[in-house]
């Protein structure tokens, strides 16, 4: 068996290798330096000891360090900032969507903001509605920023390296409940290109499309369906925006059926966009309408039994697949 590491280690390797490769890479965020614990989840452990002032613990001021990172990027650095939990992006939306995402465009291409905003989220740990929302759709709706969402340690490494090297701002959303899940170790120094989805498994009856957390669930359900004679093709988006429609459409053209699965709430979400685009391109070739599996349109609730009911279940994915086959 190949070497196994978890996502925390993979992210740490990616940051370490990027900082070693390029002295312009700097980190800003709450508690990042070793004196403050090396990050709330230890993702940045050891880096301030190794790289000194390039790793900056900041005041509890997401707007402050996001704005400072925009300025630092304009000055030629490549800041990687950590917004401890995804819901906190709400306090610095202006600097992300009106500035980082738009400066290349509004300056007539004179300037650009090569920065990475790392953040984490996910339900299942009872952190409630102000700590565990998936908000990727907010940013997918903003031209000028890329949205990357890895589903395993090796992808976390390769995609973070590519995000840091990218000339555009990247929102890098990590799924913290699976931080400790082991996975195959990445090949250090190798990036995974942004904007390209990965076909995880080939199949012929239905295409299951997911990213981040849903890539933990889809293979489990697919295995069960295989046993029942349903052949599933699985696509991990890796980059949610811009979407790799070529990979999606190639697959759905073949299977004629598609189910999109995400942890974010259902309405106006990534699933709706993918469904619309498949229908626009392949309406006549589809054997069934595209199905969406997502969380309920509620804030993430706290109590365990409510939180469990909020998120889709494996049975929901299976039922959606069966509807496309009916």
């Amino acid at each position, binding site marked *: 068996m190949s070497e196994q590491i978890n996502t925390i280690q993979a992210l740490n390797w990616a940051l370490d290798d990027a900082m070693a490769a390029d002295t312009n890479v*700097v980190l800003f965020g709450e508690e990042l330096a070793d004196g403050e614990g090396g990050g709330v989840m230890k993702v940045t452990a050891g880096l301030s000891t190794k790289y000194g*002032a*390039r790793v*900056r613990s*900041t*005041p509890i*001021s997401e*707007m*402050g*360090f*996001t*704005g*400072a*990172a*925009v*300025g*630092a*990027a*304009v*000055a*030629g*650095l490549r*800041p990687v900032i950590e917004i401890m939990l995804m819901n906190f992006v709400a306090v610095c939306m*202006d*600097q992300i969507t*009106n*500035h980082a995402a738009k*400066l*290349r*465009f*509004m*300056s*007539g*291409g*004179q*300037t*650009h903001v090569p920065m990475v905003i790392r953040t984490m989220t996910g339900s299942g740990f009872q952190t409630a509605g102000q700590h565990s929302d998936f908000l990727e759709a907010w940013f997918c709706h903003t*031209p*000028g920023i*890329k949205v990357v969402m890895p589903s395993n340690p090796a992808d976390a490494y390769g995609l973070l390296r590519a995000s840091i090297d*990218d*000339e*555009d701002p990247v929102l890098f959303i990590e799924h913290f409940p699976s931080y400790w899940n082991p996975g195959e170790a990445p090949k250090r120094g190798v990036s995974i290109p942004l*904007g390209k989805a990965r076909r995880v498994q080939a199949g012929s009856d239905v295409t299951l499309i997911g990213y981040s957390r849903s890539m933990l669930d889809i293979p489990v359900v697919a295995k069960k369906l295989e046993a029942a004679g349903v052949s599933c093709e699985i696509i991990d988006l890796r980059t949610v925006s*811009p*979407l790799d*429609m*070529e990979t999606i459409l190639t697959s759905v053209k073949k299977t004629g059926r598609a189910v999109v699965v995400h942890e974010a709430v259902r309405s106006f979400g990534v699933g709706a966009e993918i469904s619309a685009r498949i229908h626009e391109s392949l309406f006549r070739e589809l054997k069934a309408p595209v199905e969406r599996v997502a969380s309920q349109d509620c804030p993430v609730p706290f109590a365990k039994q409510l939180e469990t009911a909020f998120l889709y279940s494996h049975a929901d994915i299976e039922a959606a697949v069966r509807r496309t086959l009916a």
Partner: protein
Amino acid sequence: MNRRSRLHVPRVPARPGEAPDFSYVDLSPAGAVARPDVNARARDISFLAVELVRVLDDNGEALGPWHPHLDVHELQLGLRHMLLTRVFDDRMQRTQRQGRISFYMRSLGEEAVSVAQAMALRPGDMLFPSYRNQGVNIVRGRPLVDLMCQLLSNTRDMCKGRQLPVMYHWVAGNIFSISGNLATQFPQAVGWAMAAAIKGEDHIAASWIGEGSSAEADFHHALLFASVYQAPVILNVVNNQWAISTFQGFAGGEQRSFAARGPGYGIAGIRVDGNDFLAVYAVTQWAAERARTGAGPTLIELVTYRASAHSTSDDPARYRPKDDFDRWPLGDPIARLKQHLIRLGEWSEQRHLALSAELEELVAANWKEAVTYGMLNEGPRLNPDLMFDDVFKELPPHLQRQREQMRAEIAKKD
């Protein structure tokens, strides 16, 4: 006795039809304020946030420890830059009234702020201006035709037709993109300065906002970060008394000066006569030296007056006395520097008139060139394809598709 809580509403000193009242502006006599060592600790110099640094007195004489003793040619150059800013502003204002540009914002009465400050900084220092700092472009030698093409959104517009008029950007001149939402450039300037320090450079950053937008959270985050990391940055609050139609008291200027926010965050705060070219120059030079020698950031409040409307879409006759600026106790920055130079025997009314005429011609010649690149409704047109460029570095497939569809639609119409 009936003691109870009460709501205080800041009072505007004078409304239209009333006599202007500037008794609320705390003044210090020219030459009266001490000039601390550039390495002084913020906590030891908090008097600077209360007093008003002035060098030129009412007779045009330069007095006191802040007198920067500039070369006569520097003074004449400063006068020229301020006058060019004003002539340019006047011409663009008229052009808007003629319907040949859509929108404009003058800096009338505030020319010393941008001109003296930009002159006191080095070309490698990065400027994060607001929308009333056109003078920094003039000091750094930007051709006026470039500014005009941006106002026209024509084929030579530096922003390629994507940004509001006056929101200039000049990467080669180290002048950052002006933002349509306010105060965002403050934390960005601090971040730029932090980067300069991380890289070990001796460039510093300077940024400007109005007193009205000091009410935005960005202002406070920027001061906090500047303080925590002692970033080499100059943060300027241009207190021109008015945020469109809202008096400065509503931004919190009634109880304490805006400069006093500095000592509150542990950084030097200094209040300066914003219409006194020499005082603005000297204070900026002092703050720049502090930043460059590791003594930390400075918050400068430039006390001035917005003599014109907020923009071509605003009519101040609705909310303030018509003769407000005539009674403004700090006068007109151009008239004051001119008076000083005449007093030195280095300027005259005739030379001033000749310079005005020369600058009018310069502006007219630039306008003549600018319109050859396209006017609002005639001449060369922008290619709509420009909308898709620069969203990302590389055009992603969905934008390629949208561009092709748009081209096909346009081809059908033609």
